[in-house]
């Protein structure tokens, strides 16, 4: 049990140290965890994503809490959640102390300029992988394409996409069109 707690802590601390680019940047790491350990499946990860988009708080915290809780209850949730924010605490404390130096240094500037596209790349890769592993069928792909095209015209609230796709899923499900 202690070994599991340590492993949980190490995995989520790792996310806190290496995820650049905000809440969604944690997803590639969680995807990696889903494949390596049997804490949760990729399918559960998608469900977790849906849940964390409609609950308060940063997605990364939601994910850590959920993963920790489904692995080993409230204590697991507390461990995973503390582990994911502890690096933030350390980094921000250090950086706010050397703030002046930080911004003008050419190495730091270049590393930051390189980390942002890397974060974007990691997220793109997860999107593509999910596209192939989720059981979407042609009908799901058509809905996805419609959403993306619609977003060019007008930006909707995240809740809109989730709400509409939930209703579509329920309707198609009862019409026996999605084969689950």
């Amino acid at each position, binding site marked *: 049990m202690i070994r599991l707690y340590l492993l949980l802590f190490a995995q989520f601390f790792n996310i806190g140290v290496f995820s650049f680019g905000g809440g*969604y940047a944690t997803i590639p790491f969680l995807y990696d965890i889903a494949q390596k350990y049997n804490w949760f499946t990729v399918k559960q990860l998608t*469900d977790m994503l*849906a849940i964390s*988009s409609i609950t308060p708080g940063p997605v990364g915290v939601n994910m850590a809490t959920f993963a920790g809780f489904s692995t080993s209850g409230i204590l697991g949730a507390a461990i995973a959640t503390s582990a994911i924010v502890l690096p933030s605490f350390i980094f921000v404390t250090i950086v706010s102390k050397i703030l002046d130096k930080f911004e003008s240094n050419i190495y730091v500037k270049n590393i930051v300029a390189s980390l942002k596209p890397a974060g974007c790349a990691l997220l793109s890769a997860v999107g593509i992988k999910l596209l192939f592993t989720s059981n979407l069928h042609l009908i799901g792909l058509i809905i996805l394409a419609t959403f993306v095209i619609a977003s060019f015209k007008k930006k909707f609230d995240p809740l809109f996409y989730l*709400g509409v796709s*939930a209703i579509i899923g329920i309707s198609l499900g009862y019409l026996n069109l999605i084969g689950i």
Partner: protein
Amino acid sequence: MDKTFFSVFKTFFKIGLLLLGGGYVILPLLQSELVDKKKWITSDELVQYYAISTSLPGIIAANTAIFTGRKLLKTKGAIAALLGVILPAFIAIILLASIFNEIVRYNFVKYMFWGVGIGVITLLFLAVAEMWKKCIVDKFSVAVYTSCVLLALLTDMSPAIIVIFAVVLGIVHAVFFNKKQEQKYD
């Protein structure tokens, strides 16, 4: 309102409750609570904290909360702000997770999650599009993006290794960039 551990915690708890759809809305929320209503910090300070927070690893909303909390009450403020902003998220998930395993067995819920899965992938691609605008700005960023995407798709490399790879690319670029500038002045 005085700046005490409890008042900072309460303010950030309120912000945490309103953080729907990810941490991206933390900036406007902090602006309205801390700058406009309480006048604890200035708008300039807030934007600077946010910019640095986005380039640090970790959850941006947590980074920003810690930065702002530090400014208000040093380490005590940082702890109060961090606890405040993550506690609503923590409680909400614990409450939902306890019923989650039971409710996913129903057909209704299965169908709903199948549909929501599409919505989630849509949000992922929209987040990529949003990040793309801010991150892909020159030839260097295109090169970093392309190499990282290929590594992530074609190999089993862990994301952490890919991030370290990007750091190395940044350093190499900095060295190269420095040389070019020196040559200019020769």
